[in-house]
């Protein structure tokens, strides 16, 4: 038990050190030689997860609208679903759902790739060539995830709110216009900004966890599998806990 705690704390320390080192290299990310890899990672992070995000975002909004709408209808208040969906999407569900999908798809893929690189001695080869693995591997992935997560979250928010509007119009007799008006009445800019800040933090969490788990991979294919699994679990838990803490800081 005690040993496990120490190992986990050491892992956390290593991951934070790696994150710190990567942030020192951030000015380098837009240099001519680094740019292609950054764009490649932006493409992988952003475009490749768009399909699944679309489905999840729309259905999240639809479920939110339906569940809250059905309850509110008992009190004749179903015209308020616009607010309910918009506020919940912007503050919480937008960044949260996006982060879960990105952690499961992009995060796990990064861990598997970096883990395979470690096992097949590619990372050792980089070290011998005096190419810093943090600069070469972590930096573009970290920047891409930190940038793409807020953008993807905006996309999730729009689709979620639209999904809610669709359910409102088709099942709860709330017109599209009434839904939008109601949403605009109570949702504030702060909700959007806090949500985007969360998305940014979640992006950093996912990239750091995935790269760190990849780097500490050992024992061949089994190790790569474990790194992938741990990345998803650690990312999920951290996203949940940090999400709660950030909400607590901004909404008292």
């Amino acid at each position: 038990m005690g040993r496990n705690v120490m190992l986990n704390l050491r892992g956390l320390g290593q991951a934070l050190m790696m994150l710190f080192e990567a942030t020192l290299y951030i000015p380098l990310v837009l240099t001519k030689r680094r740019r292609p890899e950054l764009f490649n990672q932006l493409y992988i992070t952003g475009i490749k997860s768009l399909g699944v995000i679309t489905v999840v975002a729309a259905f999240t909004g639809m479920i939110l609208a339906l569940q809250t709408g059905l309850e509110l209808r008992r009190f004749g208040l179903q015209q308020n679903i616009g607010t309910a969906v918009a506020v919940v999407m912007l503050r919480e569900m937008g960044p949260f759902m996006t982060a879960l999908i990105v952690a499961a798809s992009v995060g796990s893929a990064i861990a598997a790739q970096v883990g395979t690189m470690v096992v097949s001695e590619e990372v050792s080869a980089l070290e011998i060539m005096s190419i810093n693995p943090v600069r070469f591997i972590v930096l573009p992935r970290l920047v891409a995830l930190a940038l793409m997560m807020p953008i993807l979250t905006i996309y999730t928010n729009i689709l979620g709110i639209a999904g809610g509007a669709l359910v409102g119009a088709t099942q709860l007799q709330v017109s599209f216009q009434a839904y939008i008006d109601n949403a605009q009445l109570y949702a504030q800019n702060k909700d959007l900004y806090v949500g985007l800040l969360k998305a940014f933090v979640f992006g950093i969490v996912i990239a750091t966890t995935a790269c760190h788990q990849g780097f500490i991979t050992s024992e061949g294919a089994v190790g790569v599998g474990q790194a992938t699994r741990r990345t998803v679990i650690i990312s999920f838990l951290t996203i949940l806990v940090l999400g709660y803490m950030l909400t607590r800081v901004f909404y008292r």
Partner: protein
Amino acid sequence: MIRFENVTKRLGRRNVLDGFDLKIKAGETFVICGPSGMGKSVTLKHMVRLLTPDSGRVMVGEDCVSEATGRELERIRARFGVLFQGGALLEWLTAGENVGLPLREHTDKGEDEIEKLAREKLRLVELEDAYDKHPSDLSGGMRKRVALARAIITEPEIVLYDEPTSGLDPITSRTIDELIDSLRKQLGITSVVVTHDLHSALAIGTRIAMLNFGKAVEVSAPEQFMKSSDPVVRGFLEAQYITRRGAWEKGLKL
């Protein structure tokens, strides 16, 4: 050129290197062989500080690689090229980009010049056609040759080879042997080769070391190595059907 001075390294519960001493001279092709798990790759990794000794030290010329850090370590590592067992090419780069990578990362050379130099090294390993191919499109032997081109593009003084012929067919293995030998002859590169393949060791080695339980039990030139009475050496030679009166004694070296 490279000296191990009383090096001990413990991995898990075992001393993989145990008071290990070794001297490798400049310009030679030094072959390290021995049973699996007896410290061959560990020895190689100490030379470029992928592993650090628990005690003792590793010298490269006047530099103590086992104590160097930061820029000093980078400078020492720059003296080396390393061919890893599986090639260790970056999968998302083409063969040409892999070969040019050290130059792209560490020099101000333009893309055209880097491409020209990368093609030149690929030509040296007879793989110029593979410039635009990804490692996944190459066979095991081709990957190792591309990795060799990458290892020598910075024109290092010393090249380390970790099992350069393992998993390759005999003909490709001999091609790799010839490449290693020609690098020594043409460019004067000091080579350290870790291998199980004694045919290869006898063909290219200027000296051969046999490692067993963390110590070098035999270090000698191929002719003496063949005549060694050490049981591990004899076992290795006989397992690979090399007899004292074999072809190697008749001057069939490369």
